[in-house]
Each structure stands twice: as C-alpha cells, then as structure tokens.
C-alpha cells in the first residue's frame, strides 16, 4: 500500500518535470496589450483596429512568430474614455506584464496612456489618433505613431490643390468649435504657404440648419476652391444647399478627411461628387502589399479594411522588425531599434522619424465619384511630414 503510494508520487513528479521541461522548450509568447474602444461611439474604429491586429498576428504566428516567439494579443475595452483607458492600461502593464501596448483611438487616451507608459518604462504606439500634439509639443520618448497625423492630411491636400489649381482663391467654411477652427487654420497655413489666397471664412454653429445665409459672402468672395471641415449631418446640409443654390458651380470643394464618410455619403448623394480630401490610406492603393492585404482582410472579415485597419495591421510588422533588430523586447533596446526604422506596410514603405516618433509615409488625395473614393494624387512622405517640433528627446 505504502509502496504503491510512493510510486504514484514519483510518477507525478516525473510527469510534472516533463511538463515543465515541455513548457520551457517552447519560448514564452510576446504579450501585446490592446486598449481600444470595443463599445460606444467609436466601436466601428475599435473593430477595425482589432481586425487589423488579429490578421497581422495570425500571419506572423503562422510564419514562426517574432524570433520564434508567438504574439499574444490581450484586449481591453477603453470605451474611448481616457480615464478608463489609463485604468485598463495600468492593469495590462502591472498584472498581465505586457511587453508593448497599442489600440488607443481618442487622442486624449493616447496622451494619458503615454504618460502611464513612461512611468512603467514601457513603449506604446497609436495607430489611429490624429492630434498633431502627440508627436509635437506633447511628444514622449515612450510613444510612437504609425498613422498619419492631422497636419499631414492638410499638407497632402494643400499640395494637391497647389498642383491642380495653382494660386487658388480659397474660401473656408468650418464648424465653430475647437476641431473646426484648428482644421481650418491648419489648412489655411498649409495652402497659403504654397501661394493660395485666403478670400474669406465663415464659422457656422455646430448642427447648423441652413447655410444659405452665408452664400452671399461666399459668392462675393469669388473663390475657385472652398475648403470645409464640417462633419456628419452638417455636411449633408452644406453640400445639398450649395448644390441647390449653385454655389459649387465652377468651384472645387475640398475638405477634412472626416467631412464625407461612408455614414453620410448616401444622404449627400450626387452633391458629394468631386469632393477631394487628403488621407493616409485607401483600399484602392495599387501595390502588391496592399492588394494582398485587402484580399486577406476581405477573406477573413468579408468587409473592406479602412485607414485604421491598415495602420493597425502595419503596426505589428513595425514591432516585429524592431524586436528582431534589437534581438530583445527590452524597452531601451526596442526604442533604439525603432528610431529611423523602415518597414513594409499596405501603404508602401514607412519610416519612423527618430526626432518625434512620427511615421513618415506617402499621402494621397482622394476624390468622391459616385459613392467611391478614387485616388487622384500622391504626395511623397518628405513633403507631407512637416517639421519636427518635438523638443523633449
């Protein structure tokens, strides 16, 4: 009886040690935390982030992982709320001990989680946030951005306008709040530097009913380009009323990337035709990497990737390239490897600028034609990026 018990114990011990050696033979996975909105207004963006990351992780793991280690993505819902984002990120850093973190959408969340990353001595990257400040006056040595920032979108659009309509007379129509005023002033600066003339501006209240009272001013200013950064239903009204009054006749309408979206395009209808904006990605980009990405994405999710899906997909390849170059996942070594790193994405080659941690990439001008965005111009990355204004590192 006793002997039997002894043998059993030995058997268990052997089994345990075998198990342990089996586990240690397989290198531990690299944990990447993803704090992204999976509920609330920004859910559609969070979904694209998740789809892009999942697809890239699947591909990388199938090809042997990063230096033999698999990628393990751990998701947390940030509800597009900076306070929730920091809580969830803290949990991922402290409890899950993630090696790297991404996913934040709201620029406020990215800034807040960036500070947290500094305290935990970890690196994060955003694939969505647009606010220029993240890689300018509020830059952080622990924060990287792989997507194009707002300034690059206006630079791309200004370059397109300058090429197609040199010395344009531009009238600006914006919604009267922070985002509206900052987008108008950014584009005004970018376009007037290239020789365009500012012939007038009007800031209408958010949710404005009728834009016709401003059309007199627009006509009197005799513009040949109208720039607008209204969004949502305001775009529906502005565009259809401009059509109604013929204000857009002989005028090129350009605007912010959020002005015409798949949500309001149907309601705007024909009035949206001819609208041009600057973007960092389009599923229509004609290069082998993007064609393969779009085909795989559609196969996996039966929908088209957007800007957020593409940039999130590209991020894991950025991290992979950095870790392989550093031969480590240690923060200082990976950071050094990320600086000036070039890597392949669906948009072509991107390069991480060491001075402010902003990725440099080619930008595109797209025009709405019958419910689709067609690429009408390309601005090389060095013309779109703008000066490095980060002074912290």
């Amino acid at each position, binding site marked *: 009886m006793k002997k039997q018990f002894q043998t059993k114990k030995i058997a268990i011990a052997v089994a345990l040690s075998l198990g342990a050696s089996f586990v240690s033979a397989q290198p531990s996975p690299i944990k990447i935390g993803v704090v992204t909105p999976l509920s609330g207004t920004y859910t559609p963006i969070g979904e694209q982030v998740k789809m892009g990351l999942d697809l890239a992780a699947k591909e990388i793991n199938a090809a042997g992982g990063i230096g033999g280690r698999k990628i393990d993505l751990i998701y947390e819902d940030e509800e597009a709320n900076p306070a929730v984002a920091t809580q969830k990120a803290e949990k991922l850093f402290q409890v899950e001990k993630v090696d790297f973190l991404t996913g934040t959408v709201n620029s406020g969340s990215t800034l807040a989680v960036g500070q947290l990353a500094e305290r935990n001595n970890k690196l994060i990257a955003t694939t969505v946030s647009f606010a220029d400040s993240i890689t300018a006056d509020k830059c952080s040595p622990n924060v990287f951005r792989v997507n194009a920032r707002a300034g690059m979108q206006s630079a791309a659009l200004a370059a397109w306008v300058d090429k197609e309509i040199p010395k344009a007379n531009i009238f600006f129509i914006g919604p*009267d709040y922070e985002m509206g005023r900052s987008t108008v002033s950014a584009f005004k600066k970018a376009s007037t530097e290239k020789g365009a003339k500012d012939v007038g501006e009007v800031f209408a*209240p958010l*949710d404005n009913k*009728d834009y016709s*009272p401003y059309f*007199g001013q627009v006509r*009197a200013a005799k513009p040949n380009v109208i720039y607008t950064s209204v969004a949502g239903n305001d775009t529906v009204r502005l565009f259809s009323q401009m059509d109604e*009054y013929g204000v857009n006749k002989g005028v090129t309408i350009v605007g912010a990337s959020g002005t015409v979206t798949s949500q309001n395009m149907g309601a*705007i209808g024909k009035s949206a035709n001819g609208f041009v904006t600057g973007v960092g990605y389009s599923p229509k980009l004609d290069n082998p990497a993007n064609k393969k990405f779009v085909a795989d994405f559609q196969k996996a999710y039966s929908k088209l990737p957007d800007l957020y899906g593409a940039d999130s997909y590209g991020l894991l390849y950025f991290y992979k390239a950095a870790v392989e170059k550093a031969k480590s996942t240690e923060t200082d070594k990976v950071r050094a490897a990320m600086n000036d790193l070039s890597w392949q994405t669906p948009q072509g080659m991107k390069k991480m600028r060491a001075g402010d941690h902003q990725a440099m990439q080619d930008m595109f001008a797209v025009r709405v034609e019958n419910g689709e965005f067609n690429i009408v111009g390309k601005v090389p990355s060095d013309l779109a990026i703008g000066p490095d204004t980060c002074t912290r590192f």
Partner: protein
Amino acid sequence: MLESLQYIYAPQIINGLSIGVAVILMALGLTIIFGLLDVINMSHGEFYAAGAFFSVTLVAMGVSFWVCLLLVPLLLVPIGFAMERLLIQKVFHYKDRHILTLLLTFGIAMVLEDSYKIIWGANPIKPSAPISGASEILGVMFPNYRLFLMGFGALLILSVWVLIYKTQLGAIVRAAAYDKDMSSSLGIPVMRVYALTFAFGVALAGLAGVLLAPIYSVFPTMGRDFILMAFSVVIVGGLGSIKGAVIAGILLTQLQSISSLYISPVWSDPLVFAVMVLVLMFKPTGLYGSMKNA
C-alpha cells in the same frame, strides 16, 4: 455699393424670408396649441420630424410628394387626437398644468426621438426636392423649391388665419378656449374641440416636416432644430396670435440673417433670445395679445 446690395443684402434678405417661412410654419401649430389650449407642447418638434419621416417613407413606397402634402397631415390627425385624449387630458385639469403638460410632452418627445432612431436609424436621409432648378431674382440665383415654399407657406398661413378668425368652426374653437363652461352649456362638445385643435396643431407640424425635409434632410433629432426658434417667435409675437407669429417670425429670422453678416453666426441665436428676453421684460404678452381676446 450696388454690388454689395445685389450680392450680399438682397440674397440675405430673401434667404432670411425662406427660413422665416419655415419657422412660421413651425410656430403656427405651436401658437394654436399654446394660445387656445394653454398647453406648452415640447414634443412639437418631434411631430415635425414625424411628418418628415412619414413623407420619406411614403415617397420611397412610390407615393408622390404632392400626395404626401395632404396624406401626412391626415395621418397625424388621429395620432394627435389620441395623444390629447389619452395623455394630455389626464394632467390638463390639475392646478399646475403648465409644468405637468410641459414635462409630459417633453417625455413624449424623448420617446418619439428614440423610436425614430430605432425605426429609421441614426444616419441622415436626404429626399430630393420635388421642384429642381433655380431662378434668377434681382441677379441672384434662387432655388425654385424655396420660391414654391414661400408661396405655399404664405397661402397656408393665410388659410389657417381665415379658418380661425373668419369661419364658424374657428369661432367655436375660440369660444371653447375663451370660456369652457359657457361654451359647453351652449352645446359645444368642448372636449372633442380641444382634442381636434391639438390634432390640428400636430398636423401643421407634420406638414412643415414634409415641406422642409428636402431642404434640411431627415434624421431622428431634427425636431430640436426649429423648436427654440419657434418658441421664441410665439413668445415675441404673443401667445396664440397668428399675426404675431408671422410678424415675429419674419422679424427674428431677418435679424438673424442680417446680423450674421457682421457678427459670428454663432452669436445670431443668442441675439434672437435676447430679443425674446427684452419682450418678456417690457411686454410679457408679446407684440400682439392673444387669440382668445380677439
């Protein structure tokens, strides 16, 4: 100078007029319900939205826009009638009925708004205008549909005025509003008159929805667009006064239109409310008294 008159002031005034007609159409139903029934209908904007949603749905089903102009208000009459009978009558006879009806109709507005979101979705719908093209007036292009809107609106306002002041039906309604007990002792079915008057106001809001949908597009929260402006018009014009609503409607929208040339458009709304506050301070009954005393 002449150029600025032609390119800036003239279109500004005409645009202001077309917005004025829209606001008056909204204020008309409101001032009737407010002036005759003494009910502050906070859900008026949602009935305007109901009219717009009904019309885009009917048009999508193949019904012509011109038929909708008649059909949609008729569809709203039983809804308004039932709402007055089943809900408003329940709280109408309490002492603090102003607060109670205000809260009740505010609640109804929220329920309706969310119902539209569930039924029609949150994204805007833009019906195309039944009259396209533009005409030149004083050297300025002006959309034909807006010209039609101004003409039709003027006609509509005139017919409502005739109905209330020049017909026996109108006299009955005014009598019921002026003295409920005396009217019912004379054999007027006061309760039914109240419900029908409410339904009439609701139908007018729905008609405004049909008319304005092609200009302002259709979406669940559209009811909030005109409601503050319409309330200001009713208060400045005088509760229950149709003449007051027309004059105040034109005055306030012109003020908004012209002032937006000189000050940031964001400030043209507060300007209108400032006028309302001044009227409340110095002439609380509004520019033109009330229908009851007519």
